[in-house]
């Protein structure tokens, strides 16, 4: 019955279970054996009945009068469509075009970010870290999943995963290489482990060749990964770059 009502979860469970068994046989760490990235959800084994269990819990709390379903819908919608890395990208783009804003952003990030209308839970006390040709900043939370929600949204799975959390502090250059970013030896790498309630935003370098772009176009170049510090903002694909 569960498999009829919950085909995705069931399929995911079977897929994970099979993969785990194969990984154990091969002697590789369970849950991290995939080379391909085609799987459609978190790769750890997911019990088959999670959708059902959570539906039952939601119904119980609604019946008890504790929860308004429309409020749940609104929260999910907020983080799916309203609060995400586009917010941070606008902050970065403003800093690139407005030196006075950038100065305020570096000295009082919380207030400068609030100027653009972004504030709230998990962004109460912001710190902005500026990348330069000589210094590269990278953000991690080794203990849990601290992340600046109001400007980057909820963190991606890799940020919350054991591989990233365990390795970012001991092998940052190796981690960056895995993300496709090879830093010259002379660049200083600064890894920020979010152990307190400060929340970090990396201000990436403005890419060369972007001088003609306006603020909105610049914001369109800024990726989530560049604001965590695992990537640079690429100048590839700039309007002037097209053949």
């Amino acid at each position, binding site marked *: 019955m569960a498999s009829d009502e919950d085909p995705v979860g069931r399929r995911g469970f079977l897929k994970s279970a099979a993969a785990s068994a194969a990984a154990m046989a091969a002697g590789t760490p369970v849950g991290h054996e995939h080379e391909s*990235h085609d799987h459609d959800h978190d790769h750890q084994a997911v019990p088959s009945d999670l959708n059902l269990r959570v539906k039952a819990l939601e119904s119980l709390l609604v019946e008890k009068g504790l929860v308004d379903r429309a409020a749940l819908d609104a929260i999910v919608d907020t983080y799916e469509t309203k609060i995400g890395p586009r917010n941070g990208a606008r902050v970065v783009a403003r800093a690139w075009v407005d030196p006075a804003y950038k100065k305020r952003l570096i000295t009082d990030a919380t207030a400068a970010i609030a100027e653009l209308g972004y504030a709230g839970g998990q962004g109460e006390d912001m710190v902005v870290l500026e990348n330069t040709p000589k210094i590269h900043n990278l953000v991690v939370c080794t203990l849990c999943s601290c992340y600046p929600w109001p400007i980057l949204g909820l963190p*991606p799975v890799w940020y919350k995963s054991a591989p990233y959390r365990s390795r970012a502090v001991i092998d940052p250059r190796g981690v960056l290489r895995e993300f496709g970013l090879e830093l010259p030896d002379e660049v200083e790498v600064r890894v920020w482990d979010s152990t307190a309630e400060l929340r970090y935003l990396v201000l990436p370098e403005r890419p060369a060749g972007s001088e003609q772009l306006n603020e909105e176009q610049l914001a369109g170049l800024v990726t989530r990964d560049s604001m965590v510090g695992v990537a640079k903002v690429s100048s590839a694909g700039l309007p002037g770059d097209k053949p």
Partner: protein
Amino acid sequence: MNGVHDMGGMHGMGRIEHEKDEPVFHEPWEGRVYALTRVVRAGGGRQNLDNSRHQIELLPPAEYLRMSYYERWLARLIKQLIANGIATREEIESGTPAPGSSKTTPAVTAAMVPAMVARRNSARRDAAVSPRFKVGQRVRARNINPDGHTRLPRYARGKAGVIARDHGVFLFPDTNAEFLGEKPQHVYSVRFAARELWGERASSRDFIYLDMWDDYLDRA
């Protein structure tokens, strides 16, 4: 606590899986667990952010590693509902309220969500507490191994660094998580050379910054 959650520097966790165009929630239940946690939290009761983090740390290590992120949230939500007397285990298993149980009013309606999401709930405190250290001063992280909640990772304990910034006064998670008071004190960004933490294999150009409370530090 020296739990498996404290994984900075561990080996064997595998490659980082970077998913292109990753959705915010991979399945509907993840979004529901996230939202349920937010509204239950907004309902008040005996809970705070530090205690909530500790509830996740208290999951058995094998379970912690097996579970996906939002499965941990679901396990915590169920624990908190039961611990706070909001629902019984029987009710959660059956999905229906016990006969004759009381009905309440939701703490959060859809109209209240924008304000809830925008609300600042800072751990910063206005208390007049003097800093024990100054920017530029050399410090050593204490070698402490509390069995309760702490935000001092194992990999930094006993290691020497330099105060890079004074962030001001914040509540102290180690006591707050146990409902033993906020014990406000200064939090600093402390800069550690990667070689101090990891030895000669690390690059001399790498530095790790950790946010640390006065109670985690001694003069070096």
